[in-house]
């Protein structure tokens, strides 16, 4: 299979094209391209140290690119800070420390909507519909919830800005398999509402199963890019990255 079996289409919602850069020292990403289309789920997988999270952080503006470009809805946002990107419609759920632990679930969601001047009660209702458990626990401190519930709070907080792209950094890290399945179901539901999703995952097999598009990175380079289904079926990908 060629390296770029599916070249990103020009009308991708979010595209980080030929990104090269690192955290000051040597480059971690080498001409790496990540794109996500409207309402689709794109998953970045790869071995440890492949630069999966770095690629996502680069797309979000958390590290400086030496080369390459990030475009959101066709607009070049390469020079924008993460905060400015949030205002442009990107939302990011970090892997760790992604909630306000001493604040209630409801307050966490309110803080997610901090930049909104309009009435956000409708969005909060949608989040509660998506994660019914949060409605029951809305007066409870988010730090007291279980790991899976916290992830729901984190995703809910990010959704409060009504983003066009939701980026998740290993949303299922440290949760049980049952909770993981449930989280993936919810992520599919979010994508169905038209929000594009870009996520980094350790659980490659399960993540590719729900992905419209998968990016297999190795040492900061695109190794395989295809639909999730095709990657799962590819014997080479299976052998090298999915454990047979």
């Amino acid at each position, binding site marked *: 299979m060629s390296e770029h079996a599916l070249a990103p289409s020009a009308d991708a919602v979010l595209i980080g094209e030929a990104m090269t850069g690192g955290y000051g020292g040597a480059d971690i990403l080498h001409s790496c391209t990540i794109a996500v289309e409207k309402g689709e789920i794109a998953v970045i997988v790869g071995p440890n140290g492949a630069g999966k999270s770095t690629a996502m952080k680069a797309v979000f503006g958390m590290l400086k690119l030496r080369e390459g470009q990030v475009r959101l809805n066709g607009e070049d946002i390469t020079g924008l800070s993460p*905060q400015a990107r949030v205002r442009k419609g990107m939302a990011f759920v970090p892997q760790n420390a992604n909630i306000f*632990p*001493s604040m209630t679930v409801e307050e966490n969601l309110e803080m997610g909507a901090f930049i909104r001047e309009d009435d956000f009660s409708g969005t909060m209702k949608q989040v509660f519909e998506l994660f019914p458990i949060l409605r029951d626990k809305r007066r409870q401190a988010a730090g007291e919830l279980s790991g899976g519930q916290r992830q729901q709070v984190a995703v809910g907080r990010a959704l409060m800005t009504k983003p066009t792209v939701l980026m998740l950094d290993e949303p299922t890290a440290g949760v049980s398999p049952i909770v993981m399945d449930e989280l993936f179901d919810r992520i599919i539901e979010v994508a169905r509402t038209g929000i594009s999703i870009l996520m980094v995952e350790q659980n490659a097999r399960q993540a590719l199963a729900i992905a419209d598009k998968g990016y297999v990175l190795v040492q900061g380079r695109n190794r395989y890019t295809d639909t999730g289904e095709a990657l799962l079926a590819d014997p080479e990908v299976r052998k090298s990255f999915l454990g047979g």
Partner: protein
Amino acid sequence: MDPLNAIVALTNFVLIPALAYGSQIALGALGITLIYGILRFAHFAHGDIMALGTAVVILVTWGFQAQGIGLGPLPTALLALPFGIAATILYLLAVDRTVYRFYRKVKAKPMIFVMAALGVMFVTNGITRLVMGPSEQRFADGERFIISVREFRDWTGLAEGLALRSAQALTIVVALIAMVLLFWFLNRTRAGKSMRAYSDNEDLALLSGINPERVVVITWAITGTLIVLAGTLYGLDKSYRPFTYFQLLLPFFAAAIVGGLGNPMGAIIGGYVVAFAEMGITYAWRRVFTHLLPEGWEPTGLMQILPVDYKFAVTFGILVIVLIFRPTGIFKGRTL
């Protein structure tokens, strides 16, 4: 045996003074805890800022008194409070601009912040000396007692008297109002919630679009208000002396740490814990026990665990015990 007299004596000599003193400490400790939660450093200039802010209140009070402006039975200082608070907030913001903001920008280590705060402490101390001098000042006026010992004895016919000074009552009432307003602000308003969010998770707060400089300004404004309230009430209740105010730093920190650094409710509880411990351990309990024990059993000694001069040793002891056995405080706060 006369338990009623014992209760009256205890209330008069321990409960009421400790409640007032505890309220003053709580107001100071709230500032320490807020600054620690938001700006993440130990604000050692707190006591001297209190001295400076209160100095402004005293000067304005004297001005009002000279012109014959007063509040009748209430102390004139209440009228001067807004001036002192405004001046203190401006001073704190100026210090933040010139000193702390730089260290925030370069993401300095907490220890460097503490050293900077120490410098601010010395400078503030010097300014206070220039403006007020080092000696004791009195500025209380208005009605001195709500209940005096003589009145109380006449009403009740008890051997023990009970006095409630207006400064004590005022302290408790004002502190209560300030605390209620503070909690309303922190829990119900958007700005207050953004402060808590910033204290909880700085990075996520930034991602959520919360402006850190705004949070910092609000924090200084609240701290300035609380500290001038504390200083003025302390001055009315006891007396004003810059060095005494500097020394209050210890109970402030002890209260904040006992309650759990970064936790406002903890700072309040901690304030009362420290005050009651100081009062209880340095009080001569003979009177109370004389009333409580059967005749012939009266204690001959003072029944005082430590002399009053050692009240800071009590606070220090509490601080050490908490830091050894429960460094996060009563409510889980951060460790220093």
